[in-house]
């Protein structure tokens, strides 16, 4: 696992806008990762309509930009969360939404200045956001970016 408890330097995703081609592979790999089967072909055929990508590619003309939760130091979504579902891990600094506790009040969507949280309306209505793929060595959006427009490294570097 990455980052020891208490580590000051925590790994985060950095965005290198000038390299983003707007290919949206990050979105697809994110969807697959958060699908049930986690298999790209099966997920594509049967599940993707139901799974939201938790990274979002914005595009204006030739400018493109992939953005996911920044896991803010002073996270406004955590302060705004009325249910206690949105939590910032004290050790890793990763902000996650406990989907069992979320009631879908959308306070976090209203508070996130990056617009990085979405309404997941399939099944129970809950907030959907980047979990930094905590069970992977490298988040899948970073790993599968063909142009290295996303980078995963210590915040201190």
């Amino acid at each position, binding site marked *: 696992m990455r980052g020891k408890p208490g580590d000051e330097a925590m790994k*985060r*995703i*950095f*965005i*290198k*806008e000038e390299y983003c081609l707007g290919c949206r592979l990050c979105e697809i790999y994110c969807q697959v990762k958060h699908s049930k089967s986690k298999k790209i072909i099966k997920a594509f055929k049967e599940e993707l309509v139901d799974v939201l990508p938790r990274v*979002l590619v*914005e*595009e*204006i003309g030739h*400018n493109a*930009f992939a*953005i996911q939760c*920044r*896991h*803010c*130091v002073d996270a*406004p*979504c955590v*302060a*705004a969360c*009325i*249910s*206690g579902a949105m939590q910032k891990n004290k050790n890793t600094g990763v902000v996650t939404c406990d989907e*069992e*506790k979320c*009631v*879908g*009040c*959308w*306070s*976090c*969507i*209203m*508070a*996130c*200045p*990056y*617009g990085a*949280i*979405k*309404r997941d309306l399939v099944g129970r209505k809950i907030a959907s956001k980047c979990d930094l793929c905590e069970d992977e060595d490298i988040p899948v959006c970073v790993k599968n970016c063909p142009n290295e427009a996303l980078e995963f490294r210590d*915040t201190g570097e």
Partner: protein
Amino acid sequence: MDKGNIMSNDSIDYLIIGNSASGLAAAESIRELDGQGRIVILTEEEYENYSKPLITYYLAGRISAGRIYLKEESFYRENNIGLLTGARVISINTGNNSLKTEDGRSFEYIRLLIASGGKPIVPEIRHSTAGKERKKNLERYIDGSNYGNIGGIFTLTTLKDAIAIKEYIGKNKIDNICILGGGLIGLKSAEAFLETGMKITIIELADRILAATFDREASGIIENTIRSAGNGIYTGNTIEEIFTDNGRISGCRLKDGSQIECGMLIIAVGVVPGISITRGTGIKTSRGILVDDHMKTSVKNVYASGDVVESMDILLGENRNIAIWPLAVRQGYVAGNNMAGGEKSYSGGFFMNSVEILGIPSVSMGLTNVEASGDGSVEVKKELKTDRRQYKKVVIRDNRISGLIMVGNIERAGIYAGLIKNRIDISGIKQDIFREDFGILHLPSNYRKHLVVGEGIEV
């Protein structure tokens, strides 16, 4: 109930009145700086910990009583925080740094935080009874002190209220509810009752519901949605008289003469800061407790935060009571930090809220009920798609966004919140702010940089 090391005669390093959003945020922030100091939280309620805004979700059956907690069970133990439930503070003596609870105990503190929130208002309403009960000597008026004596009349601001309401509905097979007050709590209750298939009637004094936070168009969409599902809304109206039958509410008569039958009445006309405990203490109050940007009151070593205070509204440039969760948390955090020797300051806030009625989500923030000014300093952009029940309005004052309403589609609403909070000059992007795909790429480049530097994005 006592949890943690409460029983000791030493002065408590950090004594906190209030076990909710603000008090708990303060305790957490104290612990960030001071791992040892003794923290004790007092609450007048019997429940150990729950999230107040979840009580309507509990009523709707969307969350169980077991999940309504705000903090994990281990929270108090892990942070070594003492909690005393059923402890209503009745007086504070700032002369000798102590306070008293209703059950006769007293506590000494080194630093005190008042995070006691708000209390519901109950207006005086005439009361008549039907049939043989007339002879009994019943009260002619209900008010805050006696409404509980009548079955089926409730306020809805605590878990205790919600549990009692749920029980009453079950026992008396209620399917028809009047809600007095079409503000936020009224609408949050409406959201819950509608979700469980009840018929509701909202009675609102203003000429429309959500009048304080929505404009006419947005209120209209919500009103139409509620009405077309077979429910009633009476605006510019109020309850003049309630009727009871066998000690239980059976209906009411409105100012315009309409008579409505109902099995239950929820009084949701508003909440006021609970400042009565500051009487005689020298702590300065107006509508709420007055605080500076470190959440200090006018009395040394006494802090206050959350729904009980008046704090800086960055859009009005003056202090006022903005009773919402995110600000209660933020202020609690700042208060705790300063109590423990930190130097964080509160940079002010603005109103924001999200409600979903019958599947229509909505968000409103800042000053929304504003029209364009003749001199061009206030601009208003709106777009109403009546058929799709979608509406969006952006209020721009001196080239800065000062208000937003989104109904139907609320995606990425927070981007606007960021622009409001940081008072970003949007003159260069006015043509973009209404785009469907409005996003980070459209933001002024300076602000985009500011957003991303330090939080992990390189642009």
